[in-house]
């Protein structure tokens, strides 16, 4: 599985905001903390607002606030706003018919893998992800683990 940047930035933002739902943060605050492009993050934030996961707060000191349900929203709910998480087979357009049964079998196998991937991501709530990331931060001396 390869997560695109949009999904990753969205998870940074959603988990950061969900860690304290009363707090408001600007795109710049989040982008600086995670060392990511604020321009790209701004686009991501618009998707998250549209999906109702975050709320834009206007005015002085405005920014974004978490608006989802931390114990119900799953990682898949966030990721699927940005990608389908479906394996692709790079099948040649003019391939011979001889390859059809193999392609069909491979498609069936990748579908099985995709379903498992989704099943895993759909059972990890933001609350559980936050709990795990806090544990990692504590053991790594507040340095996010890269494994």
């Amino acid at each position, binding site marked *: 599985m390869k997560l695109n940047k949009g999904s990753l930035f969205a998870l940074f933002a959603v988990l950061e905001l969900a860690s304290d739902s009363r707090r408001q943060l600007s795109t710049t605050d989040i982008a600086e903390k995670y060392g990511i492009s604020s321009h790209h993050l701004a686009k991501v934030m618009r998707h998250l607002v549209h999906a109702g996961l975050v709320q834009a707060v206007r005015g002085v000191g405005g920014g974004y606030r978490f608006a989802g349900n931390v114990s119900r929203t*799953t990682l898949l709910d966030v990721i699927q706003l940005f990608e389908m998480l479906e394996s692709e087979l790079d099948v040649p357009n003019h391939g011979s018919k001889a390859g059809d049964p193999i392609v069909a079998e491979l498609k069936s196998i990748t579908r099985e893998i995709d*379903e498992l991937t989704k099943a895993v991501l759909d059972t990890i709530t933001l609350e559980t992800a936050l709990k795990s990331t806090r544990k990692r931060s504590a053991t790594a001396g507040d340095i996010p683990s890269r494994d």
Partner: protein
Amino acid sequence: MKTRESIAIRSALPSDLDIIIALDEVGPEEEKPSYWRGIFDHYVKGGKKDRIFLVAETDGEVVGFIVGEVRAWEFGSPPCGWVFALGVSPKSRGKGVGQRMFEEICRRLKQGNIATVRTMVDRNNKETLSFFRSQGLRTGRYIELEKEID
């Protein structure tokens, strides 16, 4: 609001049978009594330490149950704890009942020198899967496979 203080966990008693049947949301209604009678015979009346059936009570009322056992050497797996049933009354969900029962079953398994706990849940049962995830369970070493028999 969490009300962990008022939750009491104890081993199930034969007299809990009817309330467990009522709390169970799995399977067709007509098959539940015979299924649970069998489970009670093995896990409540059997008196074996490696079979654990716990109930949770709040204000003297049974509001949840968890059942597990030690299984060993299935395809080479060293002894491990298996949780195969878990239920919490809808009105008592979100109050830490499941967590208290799971912590207690893990405590008892650990007393028996068991280091791993395992379970298997339908992938569409998001609520139960999310609960086990919240307790730190991850995809394990063993992969469930199945087929329709021709």
